[in-house]
């Protein structure tokens, strides 16, 4: 899965887009209207990213392949 595309809406995608925005704002080539648009998008993205990072509980599940060949995901009872 080395060529796996970065999914839209994923953390990686958001962060990548955010970096693009920061770069083009720094370049300063965009028109003012564009720049304001980019800025608003950028702030939105950084909020989303920060929000995702605020998740505090690690989700941990058990994966098992059933006899039928389907995968079952169950909660892991621990601690």
């Amino acid at each position, binding site marked *: 899965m080395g060529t796996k595309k970065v999914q839209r809406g*994923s953390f990686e995608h958001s962060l990548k887009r955010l970096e693009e925005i920061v770069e083009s704002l720094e370049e300063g080539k965009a028109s*003012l209207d564009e720049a304001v648009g980019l*800025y608003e998008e950028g*702030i939105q993205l950084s909020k989303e990213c920060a929000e995702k990072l605020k998740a505090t509980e690690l*989700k941990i599940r058990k994966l098992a392949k059933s006899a039928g060949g389907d*995968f079952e995901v169950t909660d892991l009872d621990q601690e």
Partner: protein
Amino acid sequence: MPTEKQVISVTDITRQIKMSLEQRFPRVWIQGEISNFKQHTSGHLYFTLKDEGAQISATMWRSRAAGLLFTPEDGMKVIARGGITVYPPRGSYQVDVEQLTPVGIGELQLAFERLKQKLAAEGLFDEGRKRPLPSFPERIGIITSETGAALQDMRTVLSRRFPCVTVLLMPVRVQGAGASDEIAQALKELNQYRNVDVIIVGRGGGSLEDLWAFNEEVVARAIAASEIPVVSAVGHEIDFTIADFVADLRAPTPSAAAELVVPDRLELLEVIRNNEYTMRQALAQMITAKRERVRSLVSSYALNRPRDLIREFVQRIDELQRSIGTNFAHRYERMAQDVESLGKRLIAVSPGNILKRGYAIVRKGDAIVTHAKELRPKDETVIEFQDGKVETQVK
């Protein structure tokens, strides 16, 4: 012969024994010592496994024997994996060996080196095969023991560094008979499942024998075959396993694997905060620059031309007004002079002045007499001099 008793043939009983035994023991791990080792010219191996109490015949077919990383010898302690088979023509049972693993540090070390060389020669350890790990995994597959310390360690690190991930655990045995097969199977299944960004396979530290599953060829090949990047996380710092060489990334411990697989949340938050700051700065700078530009345009020559023109006109008008004022004054003055000189000339030619020069005005009634023929004798006239009038009569 009692008719109630059922009589069966040797073949029948042997077939039943064969079915019974082969179904009961399709796969077993048997530890014992090799004796009577023979390698047939066909390549098949024949030997006996024995311990203090018993012995069992064993065969290993050429195709499987070819994968052996050591040469079995009499007296060598091994673990044989295989199924029990019955050979009816001789009425004997034996182990059909699929895999033979030496027991004991010396043999294990040797097997390790041989497998390492073999896989290295195949290119399985090449740097070029190693894939980069995802920067921000959202789902992490973990293959380890459900009850081991390794899982707890990874869990602790992931919770601290990057708790927004989902961990999918495939519980396996990580040591003992069958562990390597379970690990290899789990790798295969995670690849079928696909929905993980990276796989960590590992266990806590232990002896060479404890870690042996991670030195097995079947595990190495499963790691190499994985389409999802694999991080090996076996034991403590100093233990290198075959799995470590094949994996896309080798972590010295399970905790380290967790550290390597996810970014640090706090660092990322810092990056995001910096990005926000940079964006704000860039935009503010841009606005300032534009404002400057507007300001400079407002004061530019072109834009100020109309105002300048107006100013010029105003000035011109002022000047004109001023010059009009002077002209008028001049003309007035000149006119005044003219009037004065005309007045003087007029005064000069006034009758009074003429009278002063010795002329006199003769009037007959009201009319001024300008010709002598207008007068007849006896006409009454008035002669006006400069100092008064005299009444006279023409003779």
